[in-house]
């Protein structure tokens, strides 16, 4: 059945004629976890960039409503036609870009990069396994993801463009928009979900079954724990969205009414449907995934940051056990907080009390995790290299994003803050200067393992500082906008809701002008952010060929991925791996060096 592995003949052919696989089997249809990891990483970096480009165009429209988009306006008109007439973004196109920015960033960029990319590359190495448990399923997972990406990307170019119901795709809106974008979105999602499920099964099985001798649970690097919990989140939270996706697809294609109530009007006419469905059902099933999904976005990032902080403070992680229990707790509770996105759909006291309570409970392990990482700094000997800078910046950025989740977690405060830019700022602080910084950190940190060369430090630091400043200039003003009552998903950036005069009193009604004007500053900061990526992109490709050559363990780290040749060969390890100690034995009293690899036996 589908869960069997490598057949024997395949295996032997490997052993005997190593070079025989040829280009396609080695680099394209590879079953090697490292190649698959890199495939995931490259695909998702491309989509990260693409998702950002969509947002740049949107930011232009928000700041300068109705003005032609500079530079790419003409190009958009050529490619997309009507919806970008004269290089001006139409409301439909704005909604397309908005929905796809969210979808792409979450499902096509950050998750595949953080979970599948880094996870595939690093997890088997860190636990001392020769590969993933099911290498061929691993390959299937990537290709399913890839086809999903193609479907999503292709949908931009169909008549009417891609999905425009927001990344949340709330019915009835998403199912009644007459274009086919949503259908493509759903098909794409089913493929992406399949990919995630296959990946999740593989990760869990690998971590449970393939740990090297001596690699007990409490000796796992924290990154592995984070990936382990993440895999469970994907495994059990995604299927309900798949079910919901199938039902919405039925609504779109077969005219059913799963999410469409009786008496619904579409385009001024009574809809020709049976009715009897429930719009809220979609929301429940969507958020049942989407809340755990946000932890999927953050946990691998926390894992990366923990690795880098331990290594660059030359200290063991403070409170390793609390860290582990905290991520387990987060993983468990993440399944029962989802309706905090639905407080204002009409929720009574009891249910809202339940979800507010679980939401507050889940914030505690986050506090513990951050506390442990902060305290780790104390007494360290901190090396400020590029990965460390990004990892350090992650902490307060995630802190800010997390803290601003607290008011949102109370339904009573949500009365004022729901669906405003405060929410946008809240989660972007976590995913953009948070997760993305962690991912940058990971790229800089593991790059030497994959290529044998380091990325340039100077340009790395330029990348860091400009990005850091730009990110804060982008997202900090959004808190103010949100508090002032500016709502998200506004084609004109809220201009319609601003500065109207009361005909009787002459008072200004709605948003104050300076709140709207912040839009311009934010957009300029986003452009700065774009410029700041140039050194990174150039550095990334340049260093592949010209970067400083380094040895197998350039950061002097303890975990197993640094105990292999660089880049690791097929099968990963050239010697037998036995683990004798915990993952972070830095600066052990009495040790020769300031790091003691996990493979080093105890000399007592």
């Amino acid at each position, binding site marked *: 059945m589908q869960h069997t592995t490598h057949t024997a003949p395949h295996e032997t052919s490997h052993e005997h004629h190593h070079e025989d696989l040829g280009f396609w089997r080695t680099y394209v249809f590879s079953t090697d976890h490292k190649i698959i990891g890199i495939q995931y990483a490259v695909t998702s970096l491309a989509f990260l960039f693409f998702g950002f480009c969509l947002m740049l165009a949107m930011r232009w429209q928000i700041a300068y409503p109705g003005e032609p988009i500079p530079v790419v306006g003409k190009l958009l008109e050529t490619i997309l036609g009507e919806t970008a007439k004269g290089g001006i973004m139409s*409301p439909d196109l*704005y*909604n397309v870009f908005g929905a796809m920015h969210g979808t792409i960033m979450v499902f096509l960029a950050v998750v595949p990069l953080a979970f599948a990319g880094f996870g595939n590359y690093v997890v088997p190495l860190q636990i001392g396994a020769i590969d993933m448990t099911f290498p061929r399923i691993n390959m299937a997972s990537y290709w399913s993801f890839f086809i999903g990406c193609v479907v999503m990307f292709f949908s931009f170019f169909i008549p009417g463009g891609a999905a425009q119901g927001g990344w949340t795709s*709330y019915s*009835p809106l998403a199912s*009644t928009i007459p274009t086919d974008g949503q259908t493509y979105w759903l098909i794409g999602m089913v493929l992406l979900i399949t990919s995630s499920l296959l990946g999740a099964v593989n990760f869990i099985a690998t971590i449970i079954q393939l740990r090297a001798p001596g690699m007990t649970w409490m000796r796992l690097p924290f990154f592995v724990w984070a990936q382990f919990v993440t895999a469970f989140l994907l495994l059990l939270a995604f299927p309900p969205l798949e079910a919901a996706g199938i039902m919405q697809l039925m609504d779109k294609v077969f005219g059913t009414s799963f999410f469409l*109530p009786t*008496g*619904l*009007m579409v385009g*001024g*006419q009574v809809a020709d449907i049976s009715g009897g469905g*429930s*719009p*809220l059902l979609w929301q429940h099933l969507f958020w049942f995934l989407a809340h755990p999904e946000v932890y999927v976005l953050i946990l691998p990032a926390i894992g990366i940051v923990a690795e880098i902080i331990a290594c660059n403070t030359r*200290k063991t992680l403070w409170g390793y056990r609390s860290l582990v229990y905290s991520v387990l707790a987060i993983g468990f509770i993440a399944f029962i907080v989802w309706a905090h996105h639905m407080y*204002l759909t*009409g929720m009574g*006291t009891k249910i809202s009390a339940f979800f*507010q309570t679980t939401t*507050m409970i889940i914030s*505690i392990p986050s*506090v513990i995790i*951050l506390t442990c990482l*902060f*305290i*780790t700094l104390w*007494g*360290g*000997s*901190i090396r*400020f290299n590029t990965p460390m800078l990004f990892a350090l910046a992650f902490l*307060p950025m995630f*802190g800010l994003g997390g*803290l*601003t989740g*607290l008011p949102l977690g*109370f*339904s*009573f*405060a949500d*009365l*004022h803050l*729901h*669906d*405003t830019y405060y929410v946008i700022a809240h989660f972007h602080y976590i995913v953009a200067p948070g997760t993305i910084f962690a991912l940058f950190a990971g790229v800089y940190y593991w790059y030497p393992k994959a290529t044998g060369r380091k990325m340039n430090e100077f340009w790395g630091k330029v990348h860091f500082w400009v990005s850091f400043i730009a990110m804060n200039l982008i997202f900090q003003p959004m808190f103010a906008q949100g508090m*002032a*009552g500016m*709502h998200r998903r*506004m*084609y004109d950036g*809220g201009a*319609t*809701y601003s500065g109207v005069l*009361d005909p009787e*009193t002459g*008072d200004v*009604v709605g948003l104050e002008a300076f709140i709207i004007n912040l839009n311009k500053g934010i957009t300029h900061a986003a452009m700065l952010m774009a410029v700041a990526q140039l050194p990174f992109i150039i550095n990334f490709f340049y260093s592949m060929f010209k970067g400083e050559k380094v040895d197998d363990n350039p950061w002097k780290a303890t975990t197993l991925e640094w105990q292999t040749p660089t880049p690791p060969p097929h099968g990963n390890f050239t010697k037998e791996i036995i683990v004798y100690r915990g993952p972070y*034995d830095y600066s052990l009293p009495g040790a020769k060096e*300031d790091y003691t690899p996990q493979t080093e036996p105890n000399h007592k």
Partner: protein
Amino acid sequence: MTEPFAFLKKLLFMPVLASEHGKDVDNFIIYVHLLMGVLFVGWFSYFLYSLFRFSAKRNPKADHFGVKSHASSYLEVVVALVEVALLVGFAIPLWAKVVDDFPKESESTVIRVTAQQFAWNSRYPGKDGVFGKRDIKLVSGSNTLGYDPADPAGKDDVVPPLNDMNVPVNKPVIIQLTSLDVIHSLSIHPFRICQDAIPGQHVPLHFLPNKEGRFMITCAQLCGNAHYGMRGFFTVLSQEKYDKWMAEKAAAASASAGGFE
């Protein structure tokens, strides 16, 4: 009232306030932000100090164990306790008040608000204080709300123009909210209210406007390509002005008969 918070409200860019329960909302938001502020400032100072104090230059040899005390556990317990206090002391009871403690209909201004792409319909019960009967089976292209034209109670219902609702000041308002097509959300920031309008569902909400003025209704849920333009006005008038307005609209309604859109 809350002089000590006036400054904080400015600092947080909160908009004007025009409802009774809004005070609680604002105060509550400020309490939470105080907690956040303390945590942020505390940890951030600690963070900067450690970066300075323990840089490799200043501290070339790391201490394997680092902090030995478990003071941070107490801190975590404190955070948890504050959260419990906010939850049990404020968030839950205040929410209960918002969703359950409805004023008497006879003592309130009752409005049925129906959202549609991309406008707000409103309907007042008229003199008899009773809305016309509504039946889902009657819904059609010309009678989108499904009101029974034969029902006498519906004859005096008042239907003001789209996107324009008025209420008297200092009298509770009950809004019965629904939608015709997709999900919208009725958000009026000065009143600190927000409620999704969901097709097929009628959700009531209430508040007490305590300040005269013209306020803006924002649609807070993506509802299609003109979501950004789905603006409406909600005006709080003195009782006299309100009565006058109501009389005008009622006259207009009986002139057009039936009160249908």
